[in-house]
């Protein structure tokens, strides 16, 4: 791993009786795009605010580039933050907002002018330098907040749900831009969000948080394909959770069906375990018809279509398996899908998935 930018060591934060952050350990590398992902109240913003210095950990240590900073006040830390509300200074124009940090650091005037111009160039706002924040659109305000933080060349940029207030289309566009800016400036980004899609598409690594602790930390593919617990599997994407009993030979019995699940080594025979299958990994075919979706090496069971939702890009089918459990299948409208495919409610179907797409939850 590259050099360490941030180390969070066994950090706990309590507000009275409430434990917001519970023994968190994290290490974030230099230049990494690191996301803290979780539902509201999971401790992600508190963790970020401790990095900025607005909250002091109750226990544990925080190191910025090797130096402990728990007791350093926010204005003396070499990190900057982009706030959820942007927190622009309404009494200053765009330039004044961006120059604020440099003026506090007593940077010479001519340098301030150059750097402010560069920062505004970076976020594509050079033409609005003299505008007041209240004359800007939401997306523009967001860019000012970003420029105001980046102009200080912090070691770490902290972003607290920076795109939360934007509409969907603008958010998608800003996600791409943010990622491009991060690559360009090479600064470590710590990004707080509750939007799993945002975290998956932008991050190098994600820490999924729940109830103040880190449930799982790893690259997006790992978090998505190999969630280690039910919470992660359910929070990142949609999952079908099935409960079963371990049988000899690496199989799990779910109702009447017995299916092979890889990675069962740790579990003893007769143990009850949970497995999950992503809806997009579930293939559905007519019984007796040609195999369109199901591939030869898939594990298959029989089921019945319970409901159908048309999504445009495909169908979302709720299936009732022979054993009684329910599964959601997301059938993508790809080139392989039959054009005249019309599912009927109650229709008997063949359901299948690759054994390796079965995720074992701890």
């Amino acid at each position: 791993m590259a050099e360490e930018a941030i180390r969070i060591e066994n950090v706990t934060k309590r507000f009275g009786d409430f434990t917001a952050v519970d023994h968190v350990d994290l290490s974030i590398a230099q230049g990494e795009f690191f996301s803290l992902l979780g539902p509201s109240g999971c401790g992600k913003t508190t963790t970020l605010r401790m990095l900025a210095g607005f909250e002091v950990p109750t226990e544990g240590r925080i190191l910025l580039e090797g130096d402990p900073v728990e007791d350093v006040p926010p204005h003396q830390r070499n990190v900057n933050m982009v706030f959820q509300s942007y927190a622009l200074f309404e009494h200053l124009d765009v330039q004044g907002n961006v120059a604020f940090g440099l003026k506090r650091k007593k940077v010479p005037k001519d340098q301030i002018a150059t750097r402010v111009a560069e920062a505004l160039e970076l976020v594509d706002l050079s033409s609005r330098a003299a505008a007041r924040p209240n004359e800007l659109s939401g997306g523009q305000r967001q860019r000012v907040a970003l420029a105001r933080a980046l102009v200080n060349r912090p070691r770490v940029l902290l972003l607290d749900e920076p795109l939360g207030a934007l509409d969907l289309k603008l958010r998608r566009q800003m996600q791409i831009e943010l990622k491009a800016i991060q690559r360009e400036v090479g600064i470590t980004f710590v990004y707080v969000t509750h939007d799993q899609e945002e975290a998956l598409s932008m991050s190098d690594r994600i820490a999924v948080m729940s109830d103040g602790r880190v449930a799982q930390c790893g690259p997006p593919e790992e978090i998505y394909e190999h969630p280690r617990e039910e919470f992660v599997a359910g929070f990142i994407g949609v999952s079908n959770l099935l409960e079963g009993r371990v049988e000899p030979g690496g199989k799990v019995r779910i109702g009447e069906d017995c299916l092979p699940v890889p990675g069962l080594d740790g579990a003893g025979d007769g143990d009850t375990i949970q497995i999950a299958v992503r809806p997009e990994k579930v293939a559905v075919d007519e019984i007796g018809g040609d195999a369109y979706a199901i591939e030869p090496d898939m594990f298959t069971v029989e089921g019945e279509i319970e409901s159908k939702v048309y999504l445009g890009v495909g169908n979302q089918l709720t299936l009732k398996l022979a054993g009684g459990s329910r599964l959601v299948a997301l059938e993508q409208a790809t080139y392989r899908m039959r054009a005249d495919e019309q599912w009927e409610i109650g229709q008997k179907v063949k359901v299948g998935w690759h054994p390796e797409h079965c995720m074992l939850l701890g």
Partner: protein
Amino acid sequence: MSEPFYKPRFLRVFTGLVYLYLFIPIFIVIVFSFNSEKSLQVMQGFSFRWYSDFFNDPTLMDSLLTSVQIAVLTMVISTIVGTALAIGLVRAHSGTAKGFNILMLVPLITPEIVAGISALLIFSQLGITLSIWTIVIAHITFSISYVTIVVRGRLATIGTEVEDAAQDLGASKWESVRLVLVPSLWPAIVAAGLLVFALSFDDFVLSFFTTGEDAQPLPVRIWSMIRFGVSPTINAVGTLMMVVSISAVALAVLVPRLFGRRESGVKVLTGAEE
């Protein structure tokens, strides 16, 4: 009845009458302040003679000056103290602060005559000679509450992230208040100050109880004059006072616009959320 919502005509007439009732006394004072004769019943011609009488009366001029001095001092002191109080109450986040938030309203609902008598009692108990300063102190007691209410409303809409942002960008706690918070509050502070100026300028009850050997403030002076018969000069003084008060309040409403903001001054004064 073609309209979906029929508005009875008598409601319009009634509304008109209410407004007449509200404005006729004021209108009469203004009209008769320009009367060329001494009569308070018949308008005999247009002249500025009562205005020139007023401006040539040294006692009245002294009173005007006193009133302006009191209003300015009250405005400055209560604005500073009231703003500090508002910031403290909003940012403290403690149970005590909640109690003090309500307690702060007490000076506004205390009957002025009670406030006036208690001020007089305290000053005489402490052996303080009544002067322009005792009036200022009495005026400040109720003015602080007005400033705090107006500034507090504005503070609530600003939120705490702006101060956090300032500190994040290298400002110390004090700098974040001085460089970001106070400038953001400026429209509310100025509006509150002008409102307090208007309230202090025409206050009678408190001024009456706390006025001393210095020149009497204008409202108290007018009251003394009336005891010796009503002169049309009073109409002129009244009209001028009204102009001053209305100007101050109008400025208070307009100030936020002068700061280049979209929100209306009424919202700033009442602390209404957008």
